[in-house]
C-alpha cells in the first residue's frame, strides 16, 4: 500500500513540470561549476603574470615585460576562452558572481602589465578588443563589464603600492634616478585613478562594498606618497651627485627628467 502512494506522488501531474525544472537546474549548476573552474584558473594564472611583472628592475625591464605579456596572452587564449564559450545571452549577468573574481584578477594583471610598459591605464575597450577573437563570430562575444573592470583597476593599487615599495628600496639603495622617476610616475598614476574613482564608485551596483575597497586604496596611495616623500627628502642629497642622464631610463618613452 505504501509503495502505491509513493508512486502516485511521483506519477502525479507534478512530475512532468518538475522534470523540466530538474533539467533546468542541473544544466545551470553544471554550467556554473564549469564557469567557477575557468575563473579559478584565470585567477591563478593572472597572479603568475603579476608576480612576473614584479620581477622587473631597471636592467631587465624589456625581457621581463615581454615574458609577462606572453604569459598574459596564454591566460587569454587558454582560460578566458573557456569562459567565453560558456557565457551566452543572459548568462553573462546571471553567472557574474561565478566568474567575476577571475576576471577582476585578469584585469588587474593586464592593466598592471600595460602600465609598467607604457605608463598609462589600459582601457576597458582595449581589453575587450583582445577578447573579441576568442569567440565564434556567430556568438555573442564576452565583454568585460564596467563593474569588473573597475574592481580590477581598484586592486591594481595594491600592486602599485608593492611596486613603489620595491622601487623605493632600490632607489635609496642604489641612488639611481631611473627608479625614482618611475616611482613618481606611479604616484601620479595612482592618485589620478583614486581621484577618478571617487566620482564613479558611488554609482556602482554594490557601492557599500566598494567604499571599503576605496579606503584600502587610499591607504595604498598614501603609502606611495609617503615613499616618494621619503626619497625626496633623503634622496635629494644624493641625486645631484649622480647628475647623469642615464640612457637606460627605467621607463621607455618617458623623456628624462631634468634634475
Amino acid at each position, binding site marked *: 500500500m505504501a509503495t502505491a*502512494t509513493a508512486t502516485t506522488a511521483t506519477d502525479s501531474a*507534478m512530475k512532468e513540470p518538475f522534470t523540466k525544472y530538474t533539467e533546468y537546474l542541473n544544466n545551470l549548476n553544471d554550467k556554473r561549476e564549469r564557469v567557477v573552474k575557468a575563473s579559478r584558473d584565470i585567477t591563478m594564472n593572472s597572479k603568475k603574470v603579476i608576480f612576473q611583472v614584479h620581477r622587473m628592475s631597471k636592467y631587465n625591464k624589456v625581457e621581463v615585460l615581454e615574458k609577462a605579456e606572453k604569459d598574459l596572452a596564454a591566460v587569454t587564449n587558454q582560460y578566458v576562452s573557456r569562459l567565453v564559450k560558456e557565457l551566452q545571452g543572459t548568462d553573462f549577468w546571471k553567472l557574474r558572481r561565478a566568474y567575476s573574481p577571475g576576471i577582476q584578477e585578469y584585469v588587474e594583471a593586464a592593466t598592471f602589465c600595460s602600465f609598467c610598459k607604457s605608463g598609462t591605464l589600459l*582601457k576597458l575597450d582595449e581589453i575587450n578588443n583582445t577578447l573579441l577573437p576568442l569567440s565564434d563570430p556567430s556568438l555573442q562575444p564576452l565583454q568585460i563589464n564596467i563593474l569588473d573592470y573597475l574592481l580590477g583597476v581598484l586592486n591594481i593599487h595594491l600592486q602599485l603600492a608593492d611596486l613603489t615599495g620595491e622601487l623605493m628600496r632600490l632607489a635609496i639603495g642604489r641612488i639611481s634616478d631611473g627608479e625614482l622617476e618611475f616611482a613618481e610616475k606611479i604616484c*601620479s598614476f595612482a592618485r*589620478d*585613478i583614486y581621484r*577618478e574613482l571617487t566620482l564613479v564608485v558611488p554609482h556602482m551596483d554594490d557601492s557599500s562594498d566598494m567604499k571599503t575597497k576605496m579606503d584600502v586604496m587610499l591607504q595604498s596611495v598614501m603609502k606611495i606618497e609617503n615613499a616618494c616623500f621619503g626619497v625626496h627628502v633623503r634622496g635629494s642629497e644624493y641625486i645631484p651627485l649622480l647628475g647623469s642622464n642615464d640612457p637606460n631610463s627605467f621607463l621607455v618613452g618617458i623623456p628624462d627628467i*631634468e634634475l
Partner: protein
Amino acid sequence: MASSDFSSLPAPSLEKQFGEFRTHLEQSGTLRDRIRTVVSEIESTTRLMYASVLLVHHSRPTPELLEKAKTQIDVLKEKYKQLADILGGCPGQYYRYHGDWKSETQTVVSVLTFMHWLETGKLLEHKEAEEKLGLNGPEEFSLDVEDYLVGVCFMSNELPRYVVNQVTAGDYDCPRKVLKFLTELHAAFRMLNLRNDFLRKKFDGMKYDLRKVEEVYYDVKIRGLTPNGESIADKGTERQS
C-alpha cells in the same frame, strides 16, 4: 629639481574614460530607480491580494474572496509589462537587475499558487504562472524558475495554518486533501538537485509544514471526525507515505 611630470594634471584619456564610466553608471542608476518604482507598486498590489486571500483563515467563502483577489492580477500583469518594457532597452541584462524584483516576484508566485490551489486543488505550473503574469511572450523578461520554486515553497508555508483553521471551522476532510497535495509536492521537490542555496533552505522548511499537516490529520482521524468511512480507508495509505 621638482619633476614637472609629477604634478601634472590627469591624462585627458583617463579623464575621458572615467567620464564615460560615470555616464554609463548614472544611466543604469536611473534605470534601477525606474525599476524600483514599478517593483514597489507590484509589492503593494501583492499585499492587497494577499490580504484578500488571508480571509480564507476567517472561514469566508473561498470563491468570493478569490474573485476579489483576482481583480488584482491584471494590475500585476500591467506592472510586469512595464518592467519588461524598461528592461527591453538593455538586452542581456535581466540578471543585472534581477535582485530588484526577485523577492517581490517570489511573493507574487506564492500568492498566485495559493489562489490557484484554493480554486483547483492543483499546483500552478511555472508556465501557467508566466501566463498569468503575461510573461510568456518572446521577450527576455520571463519568470525565473528558481524564483518560481521559492514562491511555491512560500505557498506551502501557508497550508498548515489553512488546515488548522479549516478543521476548526468544521471541514474535517480538508487535512486529507492538503496532506495528499503537500506529500506530492514534497516528493516532486525531492526530484530537484539543489545546491546549498536559498531555495534549498526553503525546501528544507517544507517538511515542517508537512509534519504539521500530518499532525492535524492525525488529530482529526484519531477522534473519528473524518466525514465517512470510505475516505478513512483511502487515507490510511497516505499516512504511511
